[in-house]
């Protein structure tokens, strides 16, 4: 028995050594333009669209095949990091604005400027600003845009009807940090307590709420992408001194803290669930369970919200702020190439194909996300319309240029590590908004 174990262990050790040495020698020419390339993405909803792109790509380039692996968001980045270190990272992968700065700085991404110039990729065909996001601090391009998202208000149509609020009213909401504008009035009116009293009626019991006017996703950590940035950024405030590649965060700005004060106050008034009650079931699911009337959420959630059975969902644009404009965070993904790829030429071909109308039209036709190309975006909007979903609330942000970019800086993971508990404390009412000033100092110390 023991002997078998020993030889087994030796065999395993030998195999490990072989595997390790194989990493170093295998792969052949570094410039290989054929063979199998690996591609990773995290959104399972988009897998069918990209699988079709891969099949079409192989049809056009018979000597290249693409092996797609989908991994959930939670595992995606740690597995990718392990791959960079262990030499098993995919040739091409879906990249996020919040992550790529650090990857580029650590020389894990392949700059593709030469290829983009040589193959004459038309960067102006993408929705405005998307292509520029992927130029790093060193001025080099590390990805080609694949899609974008904005924020909108998903609402329960039946609850609106019951409250006597028209869908047109929803399209013209206003907001300000002092009294919340018509946005707060609508939220208050949509809130109903267990006795059936509405949030703006006398005798409303804020401790026994049946339906909240506004759902809550979480504290929003550093970006507040779907939670509060669509409000805070209508006041002229922005996360950082400049974007991309800011080096100073602004959570200490009184304008911001005033907005957060209003936001946290909603829970106090009983119009929004307390943060502690939102740990667990997702905001979308509690909306489907009839616990909230309006949810501010991203365009990537359209499929989920409109997919719930028995609930009529409408989508309104985010409210107009004190400066007379709406605001939505504009986030975009891109496909990047790993610097350690053994099949550089084939990978570049695939990335350019993913960024071309051939693939983005396929993605558009599946009506799951908005592709980065302007023409393909319109096709996606039409595909959503054909499914009976009006997505103007999301597209008009882009059309009217009321978007602002996801804050791209160094140290994003550490900033999030500091701001997550700090924001939770504020939104749950455990700490005053002024506590954000100390957190902001901690954040800015990272950039010194």
């Amino acid at each position: 028995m023991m002997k078998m174990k020993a030889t087994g262990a030796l065999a395993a050790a030998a195999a490990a050594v072989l595997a390790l040495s194989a990493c170093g020698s295998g792969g052949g020419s570094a410039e290989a333009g054929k063979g199998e390339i690996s591609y990773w993405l995290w959104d399972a909803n988009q897998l069918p669209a990209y699988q079709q792109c891969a099949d079409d790509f192989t049809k056009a380039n018979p000597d290249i095949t693409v092996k797609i692996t989908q991994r959930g968001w939670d595992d995606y980045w740690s597995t990718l990091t392990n791959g960079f270190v262990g030499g098993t990272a995919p040739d091409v992968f879906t990249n996020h604005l919040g992550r790529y700065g650090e990857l580029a700085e650590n020389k894990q991404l392949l700059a593709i400027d030469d290829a983009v110039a040589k193959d004459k990729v038309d960067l102006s065909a993408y929705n405005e600003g998307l292509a520029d996001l992927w130029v790093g601090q060193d001025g080099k391009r590390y990805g080609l845009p694949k899609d974008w998202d904005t924020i909108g208000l998903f609402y329960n149509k039946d609850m609106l009807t019951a409250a006597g609020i028209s869908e047109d009213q929803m399209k013209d909401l206003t907001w300000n940090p002092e009294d919340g504008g018509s946005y707060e009035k609508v939220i208050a009116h949509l809130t109903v307590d267990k006795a059936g009293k509405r949030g703006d009626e006398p005798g409303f019991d804020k401790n026994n709420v049946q339906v909240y006017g506004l759902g809550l996703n979480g504290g929003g950590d550093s970006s507040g992408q779907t939670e509060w940035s669509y409000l805070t950024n209508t006041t002229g405030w922005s996360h950082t001194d400049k974007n991309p590649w800011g080096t100073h965060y602004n959570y200490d700005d009184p304008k911001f803290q005033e907005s957060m004060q209003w936001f946290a106050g909603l829970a106090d008034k009983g119009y929004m669930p307390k943060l502690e009650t939102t740990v667990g079931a997702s905001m979308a699911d509690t909306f489907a369970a009839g616990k909230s009337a309006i949810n501010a959420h991203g365009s990537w959630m359209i499929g989920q919200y409109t997919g719930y059975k028995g609930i009529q969902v409408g989508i309104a644009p985010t409210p107009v702020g004190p400066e007379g404009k709406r605001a939505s965070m504009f986030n975009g993904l891109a496909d990047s190439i790993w610097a350690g790829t053994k099949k550089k030429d084939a990978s570049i071909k695939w990335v350019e194909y993913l960024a071309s109308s051939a693939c983005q039209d396929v993605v558009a036709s599946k009506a799951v996300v908005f592709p980065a190309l302007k023409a393909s975006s319109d096709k996606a909007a039409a595909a959503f319309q054909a499914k009976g979903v009006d997505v103007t609330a999301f597209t008009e942000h882009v059309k009217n240029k009321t978007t602002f970019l996801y804050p791209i800086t160094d140290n994003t993971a550490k900033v999030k590590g500091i701001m997550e508990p700090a924001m939770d404390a504020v939104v749950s009412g455990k700490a005053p908004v002024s506590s954000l000033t100390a957190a902001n100092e901690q954040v800015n110390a990272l950039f010194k």
Partner: protein
Amino acid sequence: MTTLTRNPSSREQNPKRTLLNRKLPGTRSDVRIALFFIAPAMIGFVLFYLVPTVRGIYLSFTEYNILGDPEWIGLENYQAIAKDPLFWNSLAVTGQYVVLNIALQTTLALGLALLMHQVAKSTIIRGALLLPYLMSNVIAALLWFWMLDYQIGVVNQFIEWAGLPRAAFFGSEEWAIPTQALINTWRHMGYTALLIFAGLQSIPGHVYEVAKLDGASAWQTFRKITIPLLRPVLVLVLVVTVIGSFQVFDTVAVTTGGGPVNATRVIQYYIYQRAFTESDFGYGSAIAVILFLILALVAFIQMKFLKGNESDLD
């Protein structure tokens, strides 16, 4: 020892050689065989424990973001940790968890073991007690995460029917740690009970007979006979479960992720956050080394003061 006396004649003939004999020929083959038997465990130990531990200690003196090269910075990480409120918070939170978890788990497991020993003799019932332990930590945590959900969890539905206010088991700072301590108590008590049960079975029956003859009450028998004779097993169980309890991670990682605010940012989760999420492997390693020292100290104190390596049966 026997090898030394195996060849008495040579000792008389050549006293100088016997000196060598004592050390070499007799033992050499033993060493070889011993090494052969030890090798599988040794390879595993060196590869998966010793090397990572030594490397971890080395990394704790460096600044290392895994994609670059480690850079030696001496004691800087440790100095920063001493001033890091989140580190001290993680110690306090972990301590709270360990006390709740161990106190409940050991008490309940002891009770269960006594029941298994004296009442529930059916293998099916004894086996059923172990069922939660057969479930993966993550599944157990997620199962309870859903059942205890504030909005749509079944437990809160029952609480409401009973006329009590709903409780944010995972969301409130007061409840988050007790909830997780209870979940892991639920999962581990069957296994702990099994260990204690094995200890109970090793207590000879005649001591109980004598106690009975002397007219000892059930409580007296338990206090004066069961507990003292069970002590070595109890100490072992405590050392193992306390170490395990200090390392709570998976339950936190799949449910609260350190929140609300910092209420469940236990030490292992904080290490993970610093090292893997924020790519600060040097800092994470330094906290891991500190945790290692704490656990070594705790285990030492337990063994020393509870005399875990002595038995009153001798």
